[in-house]
């Protein structure tokens, strides 16, 4: 790891003031589960590391669930410094947003969840093995081509949408949060702004871009989730029970009125450079009663537009299964698969 100067600001404003206006020279450090890895591999070589660990602003460090009264539109606030384990185990969040807490409970392993934060999870870098290899200069690192496009791509995107870098977005919390209609509050040199989470991610293609739209001198302060009484669930297909990222994930949320699903959101994870909204599948479910047949049809529809690479056609099938099962889970159906 290249050595650096370490800063320990005690407020979010002081942290922002330390950040550079371009990527690469300064890095924010939260749980370190991603950043330290990147530094050890010389993918990140910051001169300055700005620790967020000693900032005690409650907006940044706490989970706030307001009283939920009929006729009000309450919002849950989860600070960016909240540990993933604390999200997974939070009783009220489990009740309101099982899509989020189930996804949180499956991230990495216990140690990763005890260290990793919500902000770090949303801002983590992609896991493409060419990107993570110091000796490979691929497109995203300023090279001329993407080595995954026709190389070892079994864990890469099936919805590439013409993007020249075919990574998948690594966050499993993001699809759940997008389905729940969450937004992020961000602090920069000019103050705060709020971004809908569905507009927070981007498909990067150059070294001066990240997997999100933040400026290099902005910090995620918290995530806001409206309490809308939506049924919601997340289903992940995993190779191993722990340690790894899922192969495919579907997060769903909808309102159930008179047995019919409305305001349907279906968001896929680990199949595209950004969390992928399955618009066609949403249309299939909108206004309908969720049955096994309908869930299966939605799964089929969710694969619309998929163009697998040489080694990942299997993910097309996983998407169908994940969407079907997430819909059934959210509708309250008894699982007919082994869990």
């Amino acid at each position, binding site marked *: *790891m*290249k*050595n*650096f*100067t*370490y*800063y*320990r*600001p*005690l*407020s979010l404003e*002081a*942290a922002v*003031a*330390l950040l550079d206006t371009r990527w690469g020279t300064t890095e924010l*450090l939260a*749980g*370190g*589960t991603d950043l*330290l*890895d990147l*530094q*050890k591999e010389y993918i990140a070589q910051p001169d*300055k*590391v700005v*620790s967020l*660990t*000693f900032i*005690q602003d409650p907006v940044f460090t706490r989970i706030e669930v307001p009283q939920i009264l009929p006729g009000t539109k309450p919002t849950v606030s989860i600070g960016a410094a909240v540990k993933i*384990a604390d999200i997974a185990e939070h009783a009220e969040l489990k009740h309101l947003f099982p899509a989020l807490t189930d996804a949180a409970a499956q991230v*990495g*392993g*216990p*140690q*990763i969840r*005890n*260290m990793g934060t919500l902000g770090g999870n949303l801002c983590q870098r992609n896991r493409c093995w060419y990107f993570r290899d110091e000796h490979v200069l691929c497109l995203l690192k300023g090279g001329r081509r993407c080595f995954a496009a026709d190389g070892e791509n079994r864990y890469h995107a099936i919805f590439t949408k013409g993007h020249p870098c075919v990574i998948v977005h690594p966050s499993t919390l993001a699809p759940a949060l997008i389905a729940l209609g969450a937004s992020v509050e961000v602090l920069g040199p000019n103050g705060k702004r709020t971004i809908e989470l569905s507009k927070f991610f981007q498909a990067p293609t150059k070294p001066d871009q990240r997997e999100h739209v933040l400026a290099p001198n902005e910090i995620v302060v918290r995530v806001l989730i409206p309490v809308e009484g939506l049924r919601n669930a997340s289903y992940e297909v995993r190779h191993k*029970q*722990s*340690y790894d990222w899922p192969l495919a994930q579907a997060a769903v949320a909808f309102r159930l009125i008179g047995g019919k699903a409305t305001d349907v959101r279906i968001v896929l994870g680990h199949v595209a450079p950004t969390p992928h909204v399955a618009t066609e599948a949403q249309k299939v479910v909108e206004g309908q009663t969720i049955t096994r047949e309908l869930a299966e049809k939605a799964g089929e529809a969710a694969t619309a537009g998929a163009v697998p690479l040489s080694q990942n056609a299997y993910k097309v099938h996983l998407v169908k299964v994940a969407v079907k099962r997430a819909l059934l889970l959210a509708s309250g159906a008894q699982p007919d698969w082994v869990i």
Partner: protein
Amino acid sequence: MSQTHPPPGKPGISRRQFLTGTGLGAAATALLRTSEAPTQANQAQAPKTVGFGPNPVACELLVNGARITVHIEPRVTLLDCLRHYMDITGPKRVCDRGTCGACTVLLDGRPIYACTMLALEAQGKKIETPESLYEDGQLHRVPAAFVQYDAQQCGFCTPGFVMAMKACFDRNPNATPAEVEQGLAGNICRCGTYQQMRDALRSLCKKGG
């Protein structure tokens, strides 16, 4: 990453400078308490955050109840700080990438990977390493069960598994075998001694931890 002991001579910044440089001396060493959070006033006095390093800086950690100060570069991980600078070698360095659990220590009671945290980030927190499990000639019941059930082969993963298992019982003395196994999901045994570890943890569950 520096594998050697701290270079001789003066560190780049004295302990006093390091502690006061943050504008909140107490936060750097003592256990952080909310009452010690910076007020608007003292932040206004210290608008500029002082940096530490890249030369070695003083770092005091609270390990197994003892306060230990070493001089380390900011890039030194908690694991390397414990092993190379404090001679606390219970936590093992196997993958050094947060993917095996051999380096597991408890930070304020929760298992974490010491290889994936900077030592400076662990300041003010209670650190427990496998060394804490042998006191007054008495082996803690978790490692004792590992001995009884022959739950190790090469032993490299063992300190990490023991710490992760201890954390499960500390948290819930009535944890079920399934719950403890979930708590061990961040540790890998390359020798595959899982059945013996299962036997060991079942014996502890029966005794109510």
